């Protein structure tokens, strides 16, 4: 009797484990739509300055993030604190490449650089190939999925693709990062928020008028 109970417990645990591993996106209904429509939300700027707040595992950083479109079509991001001390200076180039010009030695870790790269790639809407994209529908929202090297980047809009509700970076099964880009003016969102789901890490950006 005890053996039977244990088997039942093991079976039910395995069942729940399988359920929890099933993709949150797979259950969504496929829908025909033009994935290229989200490209209109891609931030367009010659330069833009954001007041920035970063909270990572109990540590708080604040400063200014300058984003600048360079003549060679690359985008440079420089983050320094309010008094001018630089945290990082990175580049996203046209071919999808990523270059670090400077990073504070304490931040110079592979995990930090990978996180920075992926977080800003989804915001800058890099690596989006509409030909490879797919569209799903859930709760009155369209999920425009763009395959990445690992997982997918989702741009979630209303059904008319007139409003960008949120962005999600996801592994095959679950959401890893959620982000918002709100209140566009002069081609760029006034407010940007990034929140990691696996650990306590948030970034908040508020556009500054110089």
């Amino acid at each position: 009797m005890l053996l039977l109970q244990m088997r039942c417990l093991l079976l039910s645990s395995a069942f729940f484990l399988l359920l929890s591993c099933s993709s949150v996106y797979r259950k969504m209904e496929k829908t025909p739509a033009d994935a290229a429509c989200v490209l209109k939300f891609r931030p367009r700027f010659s330069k833009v300055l954001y007041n920035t707040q970063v909270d990572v595992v109990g540590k708080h950083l604040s400063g200014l993030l300058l984003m600048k479109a360079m003549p060679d079509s690359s985008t440079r991001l420089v983050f320094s604190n309010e008094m001018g001390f630089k945290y990082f200076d990175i580049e996203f180039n046209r071919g999808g490449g990523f270059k670090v010009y400077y990073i504070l030695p304490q931040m110079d870790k592979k995990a930090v650089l990978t996180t920075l790269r992926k977080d800003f790639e989804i915001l800058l809407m890099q690596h989006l190939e509409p030909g490879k994209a797919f569209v799903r529908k859930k709760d009155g929202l369209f999920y425009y999925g763009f395959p990445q090297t690992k997982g997918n980047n989702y741009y979630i809009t209303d059904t008319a693709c007139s409003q960008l509700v949120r962005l999600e970076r996801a592994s095959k099964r679950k959401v890893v990062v959620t982000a918002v880009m709100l209140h566009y003016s002069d081609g760029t969102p006034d407010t940007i928020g990034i929140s990691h789901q696996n650990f306590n890490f948030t970034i908040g950006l508020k556009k500054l008028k110089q």
Partner: protein
Amino acid sequence: MHRMIFLWCLTLTALCLQAQYPGYKPVADLAQFKEQFAGASRRINAIKSDFIQEKNLGMLSEKIVSKGRFWFKKDNLVRMEYNQPFQYLVIINNSNVLVKDGQKVNKISAKSNKLFQQINRMMVDCVQGTALSNPDFKVAVFESAQGWLIELVPVAKGIKDYFRNINIILARKDYSINRLEMYEQSGDNTVISFINKELNAVIADALFTIK
């Protein structure tokens, strides 16, 4: 012949030093400068001023300009209040530092962070007139008709990795700070200009309170 070569070297060195800071030449009598600087600094007990900060990003040909209010009081009390284009407050009260950005308040003990300690001391030294005796830097002093330029080249680990040199530009008439220039190893620099200075203004201690 040797004498000729020596004179040539001396002339070249002098020319190089002048070219480094146009309009400035090395101070002839450093001991006298130190004495006069120390005397003038003893007479300055407090400074109240506005400031303009320019962060120059060399490779990007970009400049980020911010403005605010500055207060200094002997000993080791500094308050910098940025109000354009963002709100940011830094209070240095001896070895304690308070940073307020937006609604977030951070209290830091500079004792727990070597780099912060060095930057903290540098900030206070610059306005207090004790920069010449800071062992973290190699010091050279230049002069022009308008003022003095104290060049601080970091020698201490930590601050040396970040800054190439830091220049303090003083007013000729009263040795008070006009400008602070911080040159990074990366080629970028931050220049803080102090304007509308009021020396020995009455400043309440409460401005520097860290609760």
